[in-house]
């Protein structure tokens, strides 16, 4: 587990750029990369190969231009992979086959923002009641659109 804390940032940067990711302006304290969702699995594999296994969480939020998903990794410092999903196609490939820890975070993103997680079949609710009928609670279109 020690290797998790001494990840080689330059090597990670090269690997992520090769996966089609671009350094972007992200949250303070994080090194942030923007990438198309098609490249998410490849980028996550590159991080795992560089001994950055620790996915802290996935932050999803409604922005005027769509839904943003941030995959917050930790390898001695915060490394974030950021996707922007258009409102007419809220879907993203599942990371659970690569890292088990993504399982519950993907369930939360699915129920709170209505994002379809490809390759997982039916997803059971995590926090919301089984008989929840309303729209995804964090997809508040009137407030953010």
């Amino acid at each position, binding site marked *: *587990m*020690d290797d*998790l*804390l001494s990840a080689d940032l330059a090597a990670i940067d090269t690997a992520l750029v090769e996966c089609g990711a671009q350094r972007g302006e*992200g*949250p*303070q*304290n*994080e090194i942030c990369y923007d990438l198309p969702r098609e490249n998410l699995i490849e980028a996550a594999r590159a991080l795992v190969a560089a001994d950055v*296994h*620790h*996915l*802290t*969480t996935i*932050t999803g*939020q409604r922005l005027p231009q769509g839904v943003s998903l*941030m995959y*917050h990794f*930790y390898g*001695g*410092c*915060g490394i*974030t992979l950021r996707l922007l999903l258009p409102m007419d196609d809220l879907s993203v490939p599942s990371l659970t086959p690569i*890292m*088990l*820890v993504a*399982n*519950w*975070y993907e369930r939360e993103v699915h129920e*709170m923002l209505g994002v379809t997680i490809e390759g997982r079949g039916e997803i059971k*609710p*995590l*926090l*919301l*009641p089984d008989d929840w009928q309303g729209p995804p*609670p*964090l997809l*508040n279109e009137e*407030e*953010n659109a």
Partner: protein
Amino acid sequence: MTPTRIPIGPQHPLLKEPLSINLSVSGETVLGADLRIGYVHRGIEKLAQQRTYIQNVHLVERVCGICSQAHTTTFCLSVEKLAGIEVPRRAQYIRMLLCELERIHSHLLWLGVLSEAIGFTTIFMYAWRDREIILDLMEDLSGGRVSHSATSIGGVRIDLTPDHERYVQTNLAEFEEQLKLFRDMVLHDRNFQARTRRLGVMGGDLVHRLGLVGPTARASGCTLDIRKQQPYLAYEEMDFQVITGTGGDVWCRAHTRLAEIDESLKIVHQILDGLPEGEVQVRAPRRVPAGEVTTRIEAPRGELFYYVRSDGSDTPARVKVRTPTLPTLASLPHLLSGVQTADVAAVIAGADLCIACADR
């Protein structure tokens, strides 16, 4: 043989918080488990988008009734970074003092819950009795046993007087004396060892894959401790060890936590000896400049993560909270698989769960 399903919860005598566990057993052996959480989901992330920053300090304090100080500290650190506020050193020390006292009482609470689950009621009684010493200290300092409301954006709203310092020193001496009993019990009691050794073993590889954090992960050899790797407050000035174990079983988790209490006490003494003079609060603006920030701290159960985005108003546009219990809960089916039904309670209690934290 067709597996038998045993539903436990959501209300059950083992934990005071609601959690539904569907065990699949064959004879006395657990084959697997399905979990259902969300019974105390309060929608705190959504609520936070409808409250001002000042109100949110008190809202996030109510995510958890055990590590409330960790939540307010993380939220305030996030907002202060966005607003560019330099918090006085004395306030950082007082925050750190409360965080470490919280770690001590959280670990003792856990030891009590585990002891009760394995039928060692005496230790449960003693652990919870002595936890009161720490809770009394926190009440004396802040006015609250559980929700301290001590941290505010820009500093803390309490200050330590010489009387407080004397009270803390005297009570800690009494507490340290009591700790010997727990250390002796974990290290030498045959019954405690028989019920916890080689139980609920979590290897380093599984810790990696499940993203476990905190003392549960450190008992399996992981060295991740945010206080060391990404120091916040004034932890870089403190001399303490990151405690790790190798066994990864329930006994090792108990041993790790007790050793962490010793380290926390070391930090508390250093704080009291080196408490800087000066202000404890600077004025904070109601409106926070637009931007986004992430903050990680080491809560009693491990890495606590906040993401805060400001749109320049007095209300956050998004607050995301990831508590350390969430990955621990997700690991529970792996921990339970293969154990005997008589040990299920010890494994669940040994995981150190905080359901309110996970549900938010």
